[in-house]
């Protein structure tokens, strides 16, 4: 080899730049295309939200002008207040407020109950294997694929027999039952991914079923529990079907009330109020996603895919 070849010159024999150090980043046309597509797609999916927000801030006369995408000429929060406080759902004119409180009650009760049940299920199914435990797990997973419609009628009969139909405990039980398959799968897979020696060590140390659960497994399952909270909170808050059927008039969740507000057909259609009511109803799951996006992805990747 000649000394020339080893010289630090940037030009190689062919006159091209000699590769050295970090590879330079090049912006190719393909890349530009990809970014352009992503930006357009994002704008496209943001469009309804934009329309909703601007419409909810306009007065009815301005809406009638039909400029769907324009910013409001005069910002008014009147529709928001009306949606929350005085909009009519059938005969009652209390706005979404009672629905919000009902949804809050249902969610705050159903989420912890369903998660605790599923957590214990998953723990028992991955560590305390007994004859038929795998079969039971299989049946439970199969439950995730049963269409809701099939079970609704028997559930109505069953719940009314025990006097829980159209009550708060009734709807909580329904949510717990329907959340069980997917949550149990989530927790079982998480516990199955832990080293089995951990469980054995605890057994040798003399800990029993509950001691191992509370002192060792529970503190370790915080990340997956957060995922479960997100899944359940959004799922239960967004639920419409079970709320309509099982909650009863007293406990109508927000989604059902929103539907009633939007479909009420007496007088003028107040698009701005409808939009405001929709945003208010969607605010909770939206907030949950924004706050917990990172946890959500991490948990799904760690728990649901593995195992």
């Amino acid at each position, binding site marked *: 080899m000649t000394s020339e070849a080893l010289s630090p010159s940037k030009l190689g024999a062919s006159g091209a730049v000699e590769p050295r150090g970090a590879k330079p980043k090049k912006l190719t046309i393909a890349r530009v295309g990809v970014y352009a597509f992503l930006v357009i797609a994002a704008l496209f999916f943001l469009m309804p939200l934009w329309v909703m927000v601007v419409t909810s801030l306009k007065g009815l006369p301005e809406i009638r002008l039909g400029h769907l995408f324009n910013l409001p000429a005069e910002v008014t929060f009147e529709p928001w207040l009306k949606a929350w406080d005085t909009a009519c759902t059938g005969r009652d004119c209390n706005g979404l407020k009672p629905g919000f409180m009902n949804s809050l009650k249902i969610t705050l009760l159903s989420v912890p109950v369903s998660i605790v049940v599923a957590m214990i299920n998953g723990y028992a199914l991955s560590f305390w294997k007994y004859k038929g435990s795998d079969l039971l797990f299989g049946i439970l997973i199969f439950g995730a694929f049963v269409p809701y419609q099939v079970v609704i009628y028997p559930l109505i009969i069953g719940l009314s027999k025990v006097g829980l139909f159209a009550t708060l405990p009734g709807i909580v039980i329904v949510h717990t039952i329907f959340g069980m398959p997917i949550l149990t799968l989530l927790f079982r897979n998480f516990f199955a991914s832990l*080293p089995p*020696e*951990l469980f*054995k*060590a*605890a*057994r*040798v*140390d*003399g*800990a029993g079923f509950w*001691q191992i659960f509370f*002192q*060792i497994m529970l*503190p*370790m399952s915080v990340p997956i529990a957060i995922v479960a909270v997100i899944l359940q909170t959004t799922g239960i808050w967004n639920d419409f079907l079970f709320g309509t059927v099982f909650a009863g008039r007293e406990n109508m969740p927000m989604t059902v009330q929103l539907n009633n507000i939007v479909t009420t057909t007496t007088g003028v259609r107040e698009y701005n109020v409808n939009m405001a009511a929709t945003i208010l109803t969607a605010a909770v799951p939206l907030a949950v996603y924004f706050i917990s996006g990172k946890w959500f992805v991490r948990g799904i990747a760690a728990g649901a895919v593995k195992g």
Partner: protein
Amino acid sequence: MTQHSVSIRDLSLNFGNVKVLEHLDLDIAQGEFIVLLGPSGCGKSTLLNCIAGLLDVSDGQIFIGGRNVTWEEPKDRGIGMVFQSYALYPQMTVERNLSFGLRVAGMKKDEIDKRVARAAEILQIGPLLQRKPVELSGGQRQRVAIGRALVRDVDVFLFDEPLSNLDAKLRSDLRVEIKRLHQRLKNTMIYVTHDQIEALTLADRIAVMKNGVIQQLSDPHTIYNKPVNLYVAGFIGSPQMNMLNGTLNGTTFTTDDGTVISAVNYQFMAPVSGPTKAILGVRPEHIVLGEEARAMPFSLDVEIEIVEPMGSDTLAWTKIGGHPVTFRCNSDVDIKSGQKAVIGFDAGRGSIFSVETTNRL
């Protein structure tokens, strides 16, 4: 009962139709360090889990300290266990890891503190007590895991490949430490490993296992020098024992290509009558070179093929009657590949196995 620390009687374990352990018997004396050695899947860890009570046996009995513990819970068996993956509780500090079992048992606080302090002193983990397991190195974690067994103040320690997750240097350090611990505590220790060096260095007795059956149970010296069958001979020793195929007639061994090797000094288990197909096994370090070789009952002129200097000694490869043969010589000896040399050995120090039964003759 007899004064065995651990006794296993006619133990069988099946997973469905798969027989993992079959009619296994094992008696372990008080204070003995026994190593269960074998390749993965030989049932050694399964046996340890049975002793610990983490697996239900299909048949047979387990006695610990003279007590039949076959149906007892792990915590009631008087054992402590150390796992390969450490299995420390990740959310607890070292101190709470050590004291977990004692707290579960409802022991008084000052007694717990005393025991934790003693374990920390023995294992020199005092400064680590307030740390979480993630903040510890592999060696420190394994010390804590040993400490967790130590605080239980039990008669029998079970080790399930405790050093396999550590790097080579730490492994040899901790190996010495476990030996020191055994000398200090004089507990019965049952140690599972696939590493023959760990087995040979630590054990009072080694149980070499294959397919759920103990092949040989003996002290390391006997296991190494008088393996009972071809399997044990091949499994123990690195580099492997040299195996020469041939025929045994009385005390004369003739290799397949006609090289005659006298086995006059060999102690046969039982007299062998008539010509038998046999395998002569010779350890690489029992083959000598040069002038020494001439003095041996068997010597041969060979050509050296490959030389591997290992630092402390040198390995050389050659052939005896077409069989590749390795031998170990002093690293100071000047030996090169392609060189002619004389090698020799005493078949009396080797092992002869029957081809038919693979057992020692």
